[in-house]
């Protein structure tokens, strides 16, 4: 398991990890600070969203607490031209790729089943709820990148790669295995980023596999590696390298980030039914934000920075809350109009019917 940051926030340097240290050394102070900022803001708005759900403002919220390092490190390792296919818990990645987080809120509020255009949102694709489906979309997209000659030209600032996120539970779905088959067969520039947060709702990862999941990749001819997913530097460095290997023609790769879902599966879930506080407490000791804060403080980061960041997070959350409350309902007309791209007689007729039907009440009342 690649770990660059020890529990007490020191840069580790065991043999396997050493080769990743240069990736960290190449980072500016601003970049290093940004990792912290990303994680703190994410945790704060994640909490805000959870509260909004409790207050009946959202249909659902899948919290990402505990997984910030895996997500932030990997997202920051992606290049502008890369394409990201998330699952449904990658809120910090959405933010880092520049998606307005309100778009995610719209989905979780039940206003949209998606809604944003990846092309105008730095190639951050829609959330996907049918587990594992997006692994095939990402792989097909990466096949298209290859067909376009937009990879393996030797210019890492231009060559494109595709990263797809999924969970430990999703690895059992046939689609994820088929994606590995296709990616390997076409040597597509796909990086499979698996967040092993130890649980698929109430089912522990041991039900999905009795051997570490990163080994899954090797059987398909895809190099795989396990990292400490609560170590933002490991997540950054290994993803940076694996994405660059994929973009430069090395074929697909898999990263298994070992992390932990600190909260409930979603706001609908009650984890006390299936797991012990003790386990959660143990993982709390590995909190990615605390660990990274130690590292930054060790490098001399000032109190002021941490205070400012906390305030930034508050502001972000407050803004998100305010804009959530302003979200209006979707329009049935728009929905009918977007089922097909081209004109369709059935949806067109039903749109008119519904509008007239609903109007008939309006005039009555």
């Amino acid at each position, binding site marked *: 398991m690649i770990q660059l940051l020890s529990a007490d926030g020191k840069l580790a340097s065991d043999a396997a990890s050493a080769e990743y240290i240069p990736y960290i050394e190449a980072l500016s102070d601003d970049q290093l600070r940004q990792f912290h900022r990303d994680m703190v803001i994410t945790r704060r708005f994640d909490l805000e969203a959870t509260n909004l759900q409790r207050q009946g403002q959202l*249909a*659902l919220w899948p919290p990402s607490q505990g997984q910030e390092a895996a997500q932030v490190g990997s997202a920051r390792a992606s290049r502008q031209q890369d394409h990201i296919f998330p699952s449904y818990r990658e809120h910090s990645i959405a933010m880092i790729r520049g998606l307005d987080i309100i778009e995610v809120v719209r*989905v*979780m*509020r*039940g*206003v*949209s*089943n*998606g809604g944003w255009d990846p092309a105008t949102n730095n190639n951050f694709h829609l959330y996907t*709820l*049918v*587990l594992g489906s997006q692994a095939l979309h990402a792989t097909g997209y990466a096949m298209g990148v290859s067909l376009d000659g937009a990879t393996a030209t030797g210019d890492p600032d231009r060559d494109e790669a595709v990263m797809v996120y999924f969970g430990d*539970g*999703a690895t*059992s*779905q*046939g*689609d994820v295995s088929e994606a590995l088959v296709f990616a390997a067969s076409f040597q597509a520039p796909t990086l499979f980023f698996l967040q092993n947060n130890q649980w*698929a*709702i*109430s*089912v522990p990862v041991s*039900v*999905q596999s009795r051997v570490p999941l990163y080994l899954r990749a090797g059987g398909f001819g895809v190099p795989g590696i396990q990292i400490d997913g609560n170590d933002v530097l490991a997540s950054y460095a290994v993803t940076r390298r694996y994405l660059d290997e994929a973009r430069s023609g090395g074929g697909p790769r898999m990263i298994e980030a070992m992390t932990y879902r600190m909260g409930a599966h979603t706001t*609908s*879930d*009650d984890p006390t*039914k*299936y797991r012990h506080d003790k386990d959660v407490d143990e993982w709390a000791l590995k909190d990615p934000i605390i660990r990274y804060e130690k590292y930054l403080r060790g490098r001399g980061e000032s109190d002021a920075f941490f205070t400012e960041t906390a305030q930034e997070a508050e502001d972000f959350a407050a803004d998100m809350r305010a804009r959530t409350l302003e979200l209006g*309902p*979707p329009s*049935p007309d728009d*929905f*009918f109009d977007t*089922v097909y791209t081209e004109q369709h007689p*059935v*949806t067109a007729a*039903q749109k008119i019917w*519904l509008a007239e*039907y*609903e109007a008939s*009440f309006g005039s009555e009342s």
Partner: protein
Amino acid sequence: MTTEELPLVKALNAGLRKALADDPKVLLMGEDIGPLGGVFRVTEGLQAEFGVKRVFDTPLAESGIVGTAIGLAMRGYRPVCEIQFDGFIFPAFDQITTQLAKMTARHEGKVPMPVVIRVPYGGHIGAVEHHQESPEAYFAHTAGLRLVSPSTPNDAYWMIQEAIASQDPVMFFEPKSRYWHKGPVDFSSSPSPLHSSRVVREGTEVTVVGHGAMINVLLQAAELAAAEGTSLEVIDLRSLSPIDYEPIIASVQKTGRLVVASEAPGFVSISSEIAATVTERAFYSLESPVLRVTGFDTPFPPAKLETSYLPDADRILEAVDRALAY
């Protein structure tokens, strides 16, 4: 006590407990059905009571769940699979249609397939994509399967046991928006046959039929109509494949008008089937065409649009009025 007020979810739980207790070959399998008791708590407490060999969590793969259930049935077990939500049944579609449904015919009748697939289905719960769908039509079109859907706690309790006792595969559709609604469960009553429909309110002017959560909507509509002086006869299909047509035909012979309601999209649907068949079998009795009130022919919309999308009592009454206008 032989009758108790229970929410539908607890009636199902009681029915499953009874089936597990009565026959050691009955197994429950699925995602999160063990310690969690299922995301809707239908299997709550059953793993603790019957052990991890009888009630177990599977890896997260619906094709795997149904495919291994087929193997277990070949071995003589009676697996009851839970699919977590309607919209997540599709990864299992191949195993259900090309394998489970055909297995007995493929064996020329020599190997029964007593597999039950439980599917919480339907809208009205304000949930995100894939969590509110009504996919019954896909399975109704598939020969070799039986499909049922209870609308009351009493039916839930009895029908789940009858489904498990069936030697054929049964798709068991649970109207999830009704899970928390209470009704009397008569533990002593001998059940109606699994595949019978039932007149749940008598009336004289228009027959309205549906299933699952729609029955409650139809009963509301019948109340409203009665208040305005129109008498509706409400029929609960209970079985979607086969459909028990006799009570419907008998009713239509009396009323001359039929409205079929369903949450599912109407195009190529069970509602279409009922319209076609009743017209064929009661042609001279019909004074208006059979009208369908269904979900629109779109994907299930975002939750905030569900009240526009799903038929409610008003939409039923709009169709009733149209039928009466013929």
